[in-house]
């Protein structure tokens, strides 16, 4: 479990991370979502003790990262897969981690297998690695100590679609076994497909957080029926606010409620889904704000 309490980082009076609090729970994948420059990486660096917070705390299993006797055994960290000496081989980088943590040397080969790096790839210098291969190696360094918590900054960056799928399955399995996963991304879709909980950050502040289902529910329901007119009448008769959305109707209610209403009026639905627009709108708004700020600076 990762617990963040009132974490703040100021550079010259400007808050890059502004009083954020959230918890990443065991058995769940927590997505840390925000546009570039929102403060995700700074927050993660503070969690692992690379950057000193101006105020607030970050703890893992109730302890500060620096107080963990052998952090690699409890927290797997990948902040930047390219931050390695280009002249070392992938296997060597993994071996250094294995030796520092005091693990059996067989773990190196084992972990290379887990992340899908071949024997010959692992013996090449990482200067020649593709971004995707570096990302896999970075994940390997995070996983080698069999930690119960993972902190990954933009882990899907540079992976091809198959790689993203692999990563999603890996992290899903990891959380299902009881691990805590915190991963960041600037892509809404990426977080949506993998995360159970979402923490959305913009300009250093948390703008939304909760389980994915909760956040998606807030967006209402998109519904279509054979008889659109009857549907609209039924929904307004049920007292639900509606609006039009590209030939469909948006109702301010959960899909379940809308379904019940439709059944009551004997309507055959052709589409019924949660509207993700709410989350997306919020996210786009954040991105736009950041861009405006960029122009002004």
């Amino acid at each position, binding site marked *: *479990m990762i617990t963040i309490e009132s974490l703040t980082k100021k550079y010259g009076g400007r808050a890059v991370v502004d009083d954020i609090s959230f918890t990443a729970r*065991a*058995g769940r994948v927590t997505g840390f979502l925000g546009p570039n420059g929102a403060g995700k990486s700074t927050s993660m*660096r503070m969690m*692992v*003790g*690379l*950057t*000193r917070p101006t105020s607030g705390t970050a703890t893992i*299993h109730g302890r500060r*990262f*620096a107080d*963990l*006797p*052998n*952090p*690699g*055994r*409890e927290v797997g*960290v990948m*902040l*930047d897969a*390219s*931050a*390695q*000496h*280009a*002249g*070392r081989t992938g296997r*060597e*980088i993994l071996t*250094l*981690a294995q*030796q*520092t*943590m*005091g*693990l*059996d040397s067989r*773990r190196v080969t084992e972990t290379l297998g887990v992340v899908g790096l071949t024997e010959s790839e692992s013996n090449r*210098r990482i200067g020649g690695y593709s971004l995707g291969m570096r990302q896999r190696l970075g994940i390997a*360094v995070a996983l080698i100590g*069999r*930690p*119960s918590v993972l902190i990954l900054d933009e882990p899907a960056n540079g992976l091809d679609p198959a790689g993203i799928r692999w990563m999603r399955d890996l992290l899903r399995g990891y959380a299902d*076994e*009881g*691990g*805590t996963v915190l991963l960041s991304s600037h892509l809404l879709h990426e977080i949506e497909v993998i995360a159970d909980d979402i923490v959305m950050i913009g300009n250093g502040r948390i703008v939304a957080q909760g389980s994915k289902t909760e956040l998606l529910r807030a967006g209402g329901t998109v519904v279509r029926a054979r008889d659109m007119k009857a549907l609209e009448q039924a929904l307004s008769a049920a007292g639900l606010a509606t609006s039009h959305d590209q030939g469909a109707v948006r109702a301010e209610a959960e899909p379940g409620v809308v379904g019940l209403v439709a059944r009551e009026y004997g309507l055959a639905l052709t589409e019924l889904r949660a509207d993700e627009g709410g989350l997306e709108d919020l996210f786009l708004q954040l991105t736009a704000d950041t861009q405006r700020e960029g122009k002004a600076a």
Partner: protein
Amino acid sequence: MTTTTLAPVREQQQTVFGQIPMSRVTRVELRKMFDTRSGFWLMASIVIAALVSTVATILFAPDADLTYYTFAKAIGFPMTVILPIIAVLSITGEWSQRSGLTTFTLVPHRNRVIFAKVVASVTIGVAAMFVALAIGVVGNVIGSSIAGVDLVWDVSFVHALDIVLGSLLCLLTGTMLGLLFRSSPVALVAYFVYALLVPTMSGLLATSQQGYQDLQPWVDLNYAQSFLFEGTLSGAQWAHLAVAVTIWLVLPALVALRLVRTSEVK
């Protein structure tokens, strides 16, 4: 290690892990000095430079000068250049190559990592100096027999230790500058300013300013250090050395350690 057969450690079954011992951190830091191509050749250059200096001494030194001291001096000079470079790069690589992101997360106490690096660098420095002095012994034996002159062993054991100490001071200066600047090019340039420019200016100042002449032994590290290479030091010279080392090495190192502790690794 009884922890090697653990199944994935999960939240519920918390295991108590021991602190990473200093010996392990040091061993890893030592390994990191050899495991890149540049690191390997830097280490190899110690032996290569010692061999080249020895051969050059045999070829070019006048027969009368073919004594062990001549060999020791010829081999010692490249060491005062290579060892600091090794020490600088061992520190600055963590920032220049950004590997510190991993290093300082696996061992979240920078003082421990830095201490391990200093121990690793000094170990290499001592080993390099003994290899160099041994190559000098071989050079002296071969050189003297080629030239047909008597073997002269004019370096005492204590003098040899002084030479090793002098080289280690150069190496530690490199470590200090690495910590202070945390950038390979800046720290390397700073070292040559330290080792070449400052002594030259100090020398010029000493010849032109009467007042500075008395002060020079106390404040010119290079000058104070030079006596280590030349032979047994007097008590006053040790005092000069201690003061100069404090000013140029110890004090900046304290500032540097403070900077390293608070600096961000990005």
